[in-house]
């Protein structure tokens, strides 16, 4: 059986690290903070792998079905016999997988930061924040009830706010962290209402009970939740759709994605951790956690998930083709890939062969964590070398950064779906799932996969081939040999993640993770793979033709597609749309009248109360005269008055 203490230690160790480094970091561990944080996480990762191994190969399976175990349950606030808020740990295939992903990627980022952040003034603070984030994320993953997950959800939001705004002396970083926080908070409002709706109808907050009550056809809770409707949509669908809004906010789904590109202002390793492998997939995880309810009881809500995911995937891929900031390209690529995971869940059904989408989504989450973290860390190494985020300042770096170059290439191939690399397998599964259930989404996914190959190799060729930019060259020379790729601390994570990006696809994922816990044989159709692979190759070759050597073709192409190019370059003006809605519409139509109301009516009332209070207290001051004989008289008079009141008046 699982050892509750071992599992509880996985999130608690980073918490201890946070407290230790947060409280004493600046004084005691000024230089050793990184090592301490990394060692703590190493233990945590060890425990996570041990736990996952035990779960998958030892005790997790009963009668060939993976169980949802609750190794730890602590009743925190008990309102009545039935309703209580618990703090618990859930152990099922997806949480077991997630703890491994989170701790592994976090460990890589910790190690990488030893090199990348070593000259930072607030080195220990940085590691404290990283530990806090890791704790929150692990807590989120292991939460056994929906209220607990909400608490950790917000904690994740706070810690990512701290990390994005780490360079708090840069106005752009401050603005980005605020934007991320506000947009996700806004989405979380939906999540909270969704939680209230779901728990109101199911009468519980516990995931297992909630799923069981809202999926079994005989349960009275399900019947009421489906029967009561609002605006013609059942309460259950509302609840799940609202929960999905929360997930869409964190996972940067269209149209709540606007914070993700800006969040690239944070330190690059942070982007690798938060915006590639962990926090942004929280939304996917949330939908997966409630998947049985989505699939069995509210297919409408699930189709929302599918459509939003598909739109986001294509939309972000188009934008990614035009951006020149390499981290922003990766950000949009992340959004696109998460769109993949979302619509894979959306097209899936519950149980058996039809549940392929679920498995594929989780599989892609797993492989994506590897290659996207690798891409971000590789980009970090490039930025470290060039001191710029812009493609225009790069070019011809393959000689200067050989290890980064090779690992980056592997990651690009993997995400492009090049055969036999990790991304290939998971993407094929997603495409297959889409093909079986929804033709339109399949076509969108196919086009997106071609675009993905194109923009990733546009990125690759612009950085590592093309003509060296004069600026990049001079930078390199200034730093010369002693700078180089950034030492072993930065290269080791790249190599380890590269191993993941190449080989993670060979895990028979369906055996471990499936919608109903039973093993799912994934079939492999060679003929099915021809189309996506061919499209991918076309994308790669186009990118090579356009960007391998410096030439006029990209500019010409951009000119000929001027309208589309421009709007994609400006991210389809979504930010401007938000600005218009918030600044012009909300501000003038809502905020100003509200401000007037607030200033005159509300403030007036408050001031009135305040002034009256002051007045009264000024007048009754004399009662508190300090003369004890007066006190005695008041005492007696009050006693008599009370007696009279209760004897004659209020009997």
């Amino acid at each position, binding site marked *: 059986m699982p050892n509750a203490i071992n599992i509880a230690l996985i999130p608690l160790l980073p918490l201890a690290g946070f407290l230790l480094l947060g409280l004493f970091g600046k004084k005691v561990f000024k230089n050793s903070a990184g090592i301490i944080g990394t060692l703590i996480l190493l233990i945590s990762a060890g425990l996570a792998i041990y736990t996952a191994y035990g779960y998958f190969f030892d005790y997790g399976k009963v009668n060939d079905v993976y169980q949802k175990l609750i190794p730890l349950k602590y009743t*925190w606030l*008990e309102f009545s016999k039935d309703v209580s808020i618990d703090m618990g740990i859930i152990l099922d295939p997806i949480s077991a997988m997630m703890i491994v992903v989170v701790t592994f990627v976090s460990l890589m980022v910790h190690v990488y930061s030893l090199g990348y952040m070593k000259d930072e003034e607030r080195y220990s603070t940085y590691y404290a924040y990283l530990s806090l984030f890791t704790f929150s994320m692990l807590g989120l993953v292991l939460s056994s009830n929906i209220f607990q997950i909400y608490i950790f959800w917000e904690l994740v939001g706070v810690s990512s706010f701290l990390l994005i705004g780490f360079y708090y002396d840069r106005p752009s970083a401050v603005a980005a962290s605020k934007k991320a926080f506000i947009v996700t908070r806004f989405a979380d409002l939906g999540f909270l209402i969704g939680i209230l709706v779901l728990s109101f109808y199911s009468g519980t907050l516990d995931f297992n009970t909630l799923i069981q009550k809202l999926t079994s056809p005989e349960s009275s809770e399900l019947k009421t939740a489906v029967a009561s409707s609002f605006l013609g949509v059942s309460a259950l669908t509302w609840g799940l759709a609202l929960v999905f809004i929360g997930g869409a906010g964190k996972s940067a789904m269209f149209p709540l994605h606007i914070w993700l590109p800006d969040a690239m202002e944070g330190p690059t390793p942070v982007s690798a951790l938060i915006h590639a492998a962990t926090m942004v997939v929280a939304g996917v995880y949330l939908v997966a956690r409630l998947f049985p309810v989505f699939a069995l009881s509210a297919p409408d809500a699930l189709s929302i998930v599918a459509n939003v995911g598909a739109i986001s995937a294509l939309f972000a891929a188009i934008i990614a083709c035009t951006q020149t900031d390499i981290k922003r390209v990766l950000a949009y690529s992340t959004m696109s890939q998460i769109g993949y995971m979302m619509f894979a869940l959306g097209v899936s059904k519950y149980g058996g062969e039809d549940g392929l989408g679920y498995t594929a989504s989780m599989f892609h989450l797993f492989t994506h964590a590897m290659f996207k973290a690798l891409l971000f860390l590789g980009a970090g190494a490039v930025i470290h070398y060039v001191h710029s985020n812009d493609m225009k300042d790069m070019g011809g770096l393959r000689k200067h950064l050989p290890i980064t170059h090779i690992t980056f290439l592997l990651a690009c191939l993997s995400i492009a779906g090049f055969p036999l690399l990790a991304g290939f397998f998971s993407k094929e599964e997603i495409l297959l799932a889409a093909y079986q259930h929804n033709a339109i989404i399949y076509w969108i996914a196919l086009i997106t996969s071609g675009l993905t190959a194109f923009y990733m190799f546009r990125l690759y060729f612009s950085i590592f081939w093309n003509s060296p930019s004069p600026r990049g060259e001079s930078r390199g020379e200034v730093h010369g040999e002693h700078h180089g790729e950034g030492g072993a601390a930065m290269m080791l994570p790249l190599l380890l993640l590269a191993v993941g990006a190449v080989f993670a696809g060979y895990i028979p994922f369906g055996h471990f993770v499936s919608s109903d816990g039973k093993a799912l044989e994934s079939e492999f159709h060679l003929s099915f793979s021809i189309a996506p692979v061919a499209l991918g190759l076309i994308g790669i070759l186009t990118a090579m033709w356009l960007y391998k050597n410096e030439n006029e073709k990209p500019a010409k192409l951009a000119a000929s597609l001027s309208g589309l190019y421009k709007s994609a370059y400006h991210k389809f003006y979504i930010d401007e749309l938000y600005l218009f809605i918030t600044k012009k519409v909300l501000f003038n139509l809502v905020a100003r009248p509200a401000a007037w109301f607030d200033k005159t009516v509300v403030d007036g009332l408050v001031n009135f109360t305040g002034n009256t209070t002051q007045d*009264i*207290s000024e007048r009754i001051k004399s009662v508190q005269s300090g003369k004890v004989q*007066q006190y005695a008289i*008041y005492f007696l008079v009050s006693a008599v008055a009370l*007696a009279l009141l*209760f004897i004659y008046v209020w009997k």
Partner: protein
Amino acid sequence: MSEFLLIMKNELVITFIIFLLLFIKLGKGMKNESLLSLIQFLLLLNVGQGFTFSEGNLFGNMFTNTEQIALEKNILNLGVYLISLLGAGWLKQHKHLPEFFMLMLSALLGMNFLISSGNLLIFFLSLELSSIPVAAMANFDLEKKASSEAAMKMILSSAFSSGILLFGISLIYGTTGTISFAELPAALNGSTLQILAFVFLFTSFAFKLSIVPFHLWTADVYEGAPIAVTSFLSVISKGSVAFIFITALYKVFSPLQQTWYNMLVILSIATMITGNLFALRQQNLKRFLAFSSITQVGFILFGISGGTNASTSAVIYFVLIYVFSNLAVFGVVSIVSSATGRETISDFKAFYQNNKLLSWVMALALFSLAGVPPTAGFFGKMFLIVAGAGNSYLWFLVIAALNLVVSLYYYLKVVRAIFMDKNDNPIEKITIGASEKLGLIICSAGIVLVGLLSWVYQYISQL
């Protein structure tokens, strides 16, 4: 005999400590520092022994002990121990240290008997035992005139209140023929004379608890008395009376429930509002705490008005939290006051600049007093309001909630002064002695843990 020793163990231990101190005083005496350490150790042992108890009745039901009563007593023991830690700086310099503790322990002894009393006679005696020594303690800043004035005011008001209480008791005896708690409920029939007697009895509780309009002595005494005494009065004294108040209302005067419920409604509203009105404008922190503690009592009354077992648990739980939170604030004020002599709110502006630890403890405690989650104070208030709301008029609940908001405002005003306001002459860095540090740590831990560890409330509510 052994029954006597076991059931009255808590009282006997306290008596033993009093005599021990007396002998030390009569003998050669000890240096203040080592004596204080000894006392702290003894009081810690006293808290430790409080965890064991035996239930039972003594002297023909004049004295009772139950698990609940034992818990209440031990909350008081804990409070006294914390005061001995937090007041260490002031106490060490005092030349009458053993007398101070003899008086305080005598008062504590009185409170223990008070909670355990099963008879109006022993109730009256123990009430006197619990208040007369406190008046002497209030005079302990010997060279300050305000301190003597406080003691004088207290003893006079207290005597006046006792007179009315005795009048009430004699009327009760006259109309019912009994003074035993067990027999009274059956004998009470709600006649005019009995209601008069009950009102008189009620006023003495109201006096001790500083319920408006019987609160007038509070501010003067709190301000004049040494801080250790003020904290004793506002926390330990109030707590003990609140405990016996519940017993009296629920068990003894249950036939008059309609009367006392209405009375509680009126007085609770008056108390909350008056406490708030005065607290808003106080500049001296001790006076501020005096009035805000009046408001807190108003909330306790709201909880008591619920009249169920849930109310009892909520009040005990609230008092426990109140011990930690209020003593922490008093502790900080006392440390600052004895080091610099400054105790107004504007003195505390920019306090954070030089005293990080003290500021955080103060903020935590004020948050808890204001009832901000996730501090224990939030849970305390929540259970009080829930307990009171079960049996309440809606408008009563609304008034309580509004007052909660007002109190939030002025508690946070102090926090704002500490952290955000500017000050040209902020309080210098203060070194904190080991005892005080320990006291503050215990209080802070209490404020955080009592709320989060749900078994604390569950334990109290199953008593």
